[in-house]
């Protein structure tokens, strides 16, 4: 079972308390954008085998959104942080680089 730390209320929440919200740090494209941009925003999700940044909501807890950095190949959670940010904090990036030296991606 996946256990994720909620950065808002501090609970070690298991996945039955949480709702997955898909890829994090998406840039929103709306009216006025090109078809390709809107398609990429709407459907072409990153689907990496490895480090992935994703949104979670602590639905059956504090109810707030946060972002988790997780490995989709091992389910290891590298860290979590509140959703009110456009990029991952440096500390999370440092943790990932330590655990996955070969990782060269970004969010």
């Amino acid at each position, binding site marked *: 079972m996946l256990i994720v730390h909620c950065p808002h209320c501090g609970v070690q929440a298991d*996945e039955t308390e949480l709702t997955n919200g898909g890829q994090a740090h998406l840039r929103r494209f709306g009216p006025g954008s090109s078809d*390709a941009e809107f398609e990429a925003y709407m459907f072409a999700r990153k689907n990496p*085998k490895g480090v992935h940044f994703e949104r979670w909501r602590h639905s059956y807890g504090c109810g707030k959104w946060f972002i988790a950095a997780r490995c*989709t190949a091992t389910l290891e959670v590298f860290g979590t942080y509140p959703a009110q940010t456009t990029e991952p904090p440096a500390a999370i990036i440092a943790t990932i680089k330590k655990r996955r030296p070969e990782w060269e991606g970004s969010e």
Partner: protein
Amino acid sequence: MRRYSAFAIAREALRHHLGWERAWASPEPRAAYDVVIVGAGGHGLATAYYLGKNFGITNVAVIEKGWLGGGNTGRNTTIIRSNYLQDPSAAIYEKSRSLYETLSQDLNYNVMFSPRGVMMLAQTHHEVRGYLRTAHANVLQGVETEWIGPDRVKELCPIMNIDGPRYPVLGALWQPRGGTARHDAVAWGYARACSAMGMHIIQQCEVTGVRSEAGQVTGVDTTKGFIGCKKLGMVVAGHSSVLAEKAGFRLPIESMALQALVSEPIKPCMDVVVMANTVHGYMSQSDKGEMVIGGGTDSFNNYTQRGSFHHIEETLRALIETFPMLSRLKMLRQWGGIVDMTGDRSPIISKTPLGGCFVNCGWGTGGFKAIPGSGWAMAELMAKGEPGPLAEEFSMYRFREGRFIDESVAAGVAH
């Protein structure tokens, strides 16, 4: 290829069974082929088979990073049906179901297709309306299904409790010609037939890169060296995004874990397939006597081929009201597969931004039933370079163009 027959069994019985051949050869890869297909699961092998059978293209290699049929082909609940709402889906799944009917004869390999009938239970009024609509659509599509009431459901499946307080059975969408088949045999049968046409099936050979020149694919780098090709077919289910990234494009796919489980074997008690979409559970009884149960997908991206335990718990908890006998059964084995989900829960059989490279993926939670039809449509696409009538609606560009084949709304869940 020596044909299997009653005569062959008699002949071998008289000479200590020394005359059986290996079902397929395991050659070393050549430097280049006309067509390379990545992924020796059901869909990949079926693509190769129909390339040879329908189009005479036999200079083909099917390469597989693990073992043949070891991915989702060996990890599903083997249900075959075609009672879909949308026309493009009904067309390809019905083609597939009809090919299954004669597949054993066609391949000279017993795939144990068992048209025992599939019923999809309606347990809410919303579902009743939905399935009535599907039944009408199926009439127009030429797919034989019928709406049946609770009494008929009970008659077809007596172990069912139709008067549950929470999920009463209000009726069902019944497809008498749906059923199950032996999943491994489908992969093995196609592999044997491909091998007999001179195609190469290369196992334990992982693709590490895709090479191209001037926007045209030239081959793949693998753990057994470079293999050149004029056309490349990617048929790798859960790992489609990973392979597409190597080829330099992104697919509208997310990979998730889907689980299934079987009970201890018991005497025959159920001779139909039952799907209960309200509670995310479906069940049939295997020839060995195990109750084969499938559940829902996990909610998050996952490549681990194992799912979360609470999903199994939820599936069984919900099914027990409709099948009270399950509460007395021990569950024997559980497994997971990585399914590739698209935004509209319909598959992709498509050209790609890379010339000569074609993709067949996105079958999500219901790929097994589609194997022959998918291979048929993919072979046509690869041979002609343009999609035929079965595949044309399943282009990966439909998301940009807003032409969804929205089975996620039509089916609700499992399909």
